[in-house]
């Protein structure tokens, strides 16, 4: 029994800090010790996935994994694994492994790899940490830590443009972090300890603090909205796409943007409680902000010729589905929003992997250069196609399931009148900026020369194996997450478990 409780304490700690320590080790590796670094990277990524496997099993069977560490009175670090954290931890661990493989292939022979992988590992540590955070304070600490760990990654290429984008990123996120912190401290002064509890903890407060709670909600959402790229706080995201492809992939799929969205979900469901938030009347403004972001991001994406830039605006739009789901009262909308946390991640990471492959292999950076690329790189383009169709919401790819539940949730809450037009507009706009890419790639004959062909297709296929496999794997997952949505332990099934516990 004692051993059990020891494991229950150590498991979350191990999951969070394994990559932290490996990251520190990697910093001190020499640049040319490629094999050792690769071994360490993969070891910790695979190891973490195995640990997460244990965690899933345990949480499903009602085990409690938690560890507390009181730093000072009223100041407690608290890691706790509930169903929602497990969902996000699993997503992070899985996509991290894939991205690590991709990054190793992508950065072959480029300088500063030890620095890159060091921060890369710190970054996963931060993401997993905020996923497992059991109270708002712990969440904020990891949230800020994430900001600092990603800054060097965005600036990695070291060119003026990259440094500028990274500075902008830092300005936005530190500013957002400040606002968040103010909100948290204010809230703490009213409530005391801010433990995340399914169903929320604020509904017992007296009526006279309700106004304060509304203001605090605004502060929290602004603080989190910077990372979640809610319009008009999204300015850094399209600029940050100068980062290397694996970083963009992570930024858009699990790490930064998702941290913001995950935070919004935590605040709405496990701090305020969605029913109480509805009572306060703060959900509708959140929903409107999300709706504006969804439509605005899609429209902006329409006008981008840069492939990664178009994908970046698409992220602005798609991530707000999560906030939209959170802003609609009712279990079905909750399912739609939270499941999109996973679905958007696997689809968007596929798109960025593919975009990186085009750039690395053929020097393609623009949509207008993609003519006929399907014939030259069929597998990469197939992966891109699956993910793009999923973004539009075409079955059986995962995005379809998200829209299905968001629509149903809106119907259940009687909010169909304003949610459905947003979903329709967004689907049509998604089609309008993704289908022309697919048309160019598959139906228009290629130009005589690619912009800059760096990797010739040969014995090993259309590009390096380590670049090719990651998008294929994630595209397959994206397809299966929709096709087998009703399978036990699918993202949808797991999220249904979460939603059932949020509404008591």
């Amino acid at each position, binding site marked *: 029994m004692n051993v059990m409780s020891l494991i229950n304490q150590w498991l979350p700690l191990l999951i969070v800090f394994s990559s932290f320590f490996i990251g520190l080790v990697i910093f001190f590796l020499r640049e040319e010790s490629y094999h050792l670094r690769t071994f360490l990277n993969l070891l910790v990524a695979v190891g973490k996935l195995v640990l997460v496997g244990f965690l899933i099993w345990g949480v499903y069977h009602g085990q409690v994994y938690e560890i507390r560490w009181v730093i000072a009175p009223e100041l407690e670090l608290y890691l706790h694994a509930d169903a929602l954290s497990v969902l996000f931890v699993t997503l992070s661990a899985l996509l991290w492994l894939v991205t690590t493989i991709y990054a190793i292939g992508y950065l072959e022979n480029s300088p500063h790899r030890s620095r890159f992988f060091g921060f890369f590992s710190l970054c996963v540590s931060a993401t997993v940490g905020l996923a497992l955070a059991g109270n708002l304070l712990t969440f904020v600490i990891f949230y800020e830590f994430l900001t600092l760990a990603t800054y060097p990654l965005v600036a990695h290429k070291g060119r003026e443009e990259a440094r500028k984008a990274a500075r902008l990123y830092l300005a936005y996120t530190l500013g957002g972090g400040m606002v968040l912190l103010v909100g948290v401290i204010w809230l703490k002064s009213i409530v005391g300890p801010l433990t995340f509890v399914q169903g929320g903890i604020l509904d017992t407060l007296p009526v006279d603090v309700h106004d304060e709670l509304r203001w605090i909600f605004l502060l929290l959402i602004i603080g989190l909205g910077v990372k979640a790229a809610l319009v008009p706080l999204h300015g850094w995201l399209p600029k940050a796409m100068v980062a290397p492809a694996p970083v963009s992939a992570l930024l858009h799929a699990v790490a930064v943007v998702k941290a913001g969205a995950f935070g919004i979900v935590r605040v709405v469901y496990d701090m305020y409680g969605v029913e109480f938030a509805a009572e306060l009347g703060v959900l509708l403004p959140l929903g409107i902000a999300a709706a504006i972001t969804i439509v605005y991001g899609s429209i902006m994406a329409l006008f981008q010729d840069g492939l990664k830039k178009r994908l970046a605006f698409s992220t602005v739009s798609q991530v707000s589905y999560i906030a939209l789901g959170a802003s609609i009262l009712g279990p079905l909308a909750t399912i739609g929003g939270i499941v999109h946390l996973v679905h958007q991640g696997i689809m968007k990471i596929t798109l960025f992997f593919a975009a990186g492959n085009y750039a690395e292999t053929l020097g393609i950076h623009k949509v207008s250069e993609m003519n006929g690329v399907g*014939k030259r790189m069929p597998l990469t383009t197939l992966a891109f196609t699956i993910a793009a169709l999923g973004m*539009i*919401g*075409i*079955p*059986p790819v995962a995005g379809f*399931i998200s*829209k*299905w539940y968001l*629509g*149903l949730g809106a*119907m*259940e809450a009687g909010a*169909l009148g304003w949610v*459905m037009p947003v*979903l*329709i507009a967004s*689907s*049509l706009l998604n*089609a309008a900026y993704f*289908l022309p890419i697919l048309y160019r790639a*598959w*139906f228009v*004959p290629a130009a005589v020369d690619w912009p800059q062909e760096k990797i010739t297709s040969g014995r090993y296929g259309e590009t390096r194996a380590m670049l090719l496999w990651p998008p294929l794997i994630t595209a397959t997952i994206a397809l299966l997450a*929709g*096709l*087998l*949505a*009703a*399978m036990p332990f699918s993202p*949808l099934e797991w999220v249904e478990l979460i939603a059932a516990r949020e509404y008591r």
Partner: protein
Amino acid sequence: MTDMTGMSSLLIVLAPLWPLLLALVRPDRIGQWLLPLAVIPALWVALIPEPGTTVDLPWLLLGSRWGVDDTSQVFLLITAWLWFIAGLYSVSGTPAGAGLWRFRIFFMLTLSGNILLILAQDMAAFFLGFAAMGLASYGMIMQQRSVTVTRAGRVYLIWTVLGEVILFTGIVMVLGTTGSHYFDSVPGAELSLVAVSMVTLGLGIKLALPGLHVWLPIAHGAAPPAVSALLSGVMVKAGVFGLLRFLPAGTESVVQVAEWLVPLGLVGAFYGVAIGLLQTAPKVVLAYSTMSQLGLLTMLTGIILQQPQAEPALLFALLLYVAHHAWVKGALFIGVGVFKKTLSIWVILLLGLLALVLAGLPYTSGALAKGSLKAALPGAYSWLEIWLLLSTFATTLLMGRFLWTLFAYRAHHAATQRISLRLPEWLAWGLLLETVLFWPLLFGAQPVKWVEALPVLLGAVIALLMAWRVRVPAGDLPVLAVHGFFRLRKRVLG
């Protein structure tokens, strides 16, 4: 007996999956023969299992159920047989090189979607099939590379995506009321008027309701013959099928919409003919004829949806009409392909025969379908009889125009090299012709009222006397408006 059920279940699951597996086989000369073979499991399912056989696939999508009932089995038979013919025709007819792979993959995806939407007993699977069919057929349309085809493809894709998004909205609203995504929860559900309208609009694009029809003549005119045959023959019928699946017949809101479908269908029936008469390309004339015939089907569906229990005679008439139109129109489109290669006068004569069958010549499927339709009309709608006669007359005129365009085409291409047909092409067209001519005999000799043949004869005579000079672009009024706008802009901007 359990063995038989097990076998049926297996084949029901296999019917949509088999084509996808075949899509992976190299499309060389032997591999091309897999095109017609892809429908074998579907044909088996259409003929052998008892209606009511279903398979539950609890892990698939949101929990899926596939199976057949009386209506869907007939739809499946009609569909699968035309796919078989189109596949056979395409064995040697598709362009060489990378085009082969592309055609193969999109053919199989479209086929798979088409079968799935018929077998689906739940809304998610239906939508999956519907979307796959709609999007993948874009790749089939885009066979030749030309400005016209590219434009046609774009118009087709825009309307298809629009239809799918609207249908999706409708499905979500239906689902919000029924609470279950299985179709057996639909009958009797009191849907909102908005939900019914959304479903109808989404499917109405496939049905080419007047105003939503722009894509049809453009796409059907530009696609290769076998693909046009499939589009016009079976894929647009997914609209009828979907309406019957999603809308709970006889409920208040459905009756309200259904009452509109009758006049709307009638308008479509005559509008299609009127514009079709002004066309010069044979396949565009046929496409407008499809719009017109879809109008009649829409009308009939509208009548069926007004009663909670579908009148068996009406449903039977609908199925006869669907079979009649699917196969005749398929044979006409493939026949145009045959004609354009051979430029043979014999082919024109055969096409003339088919044209008369479509119009409703006695002793043919046209007369059978229209006769049973007329016999089944409920009392409240007996006034439609005269309109049906008029529509027969109009269709005959349109078919006259069709033959006229063939002669014009022949005169224009007199100097062109004639291409001899390959064996599979002859085989495919021949088989379909025999199907068209002989399947009505299964229903025994029909009493012939020569009065009803009158409009056909009259139409034929008038058609012979007329030669048209006016023409309107495919896509008619909306396209004209767009052209006009650009011309105006040019003039204004200098």
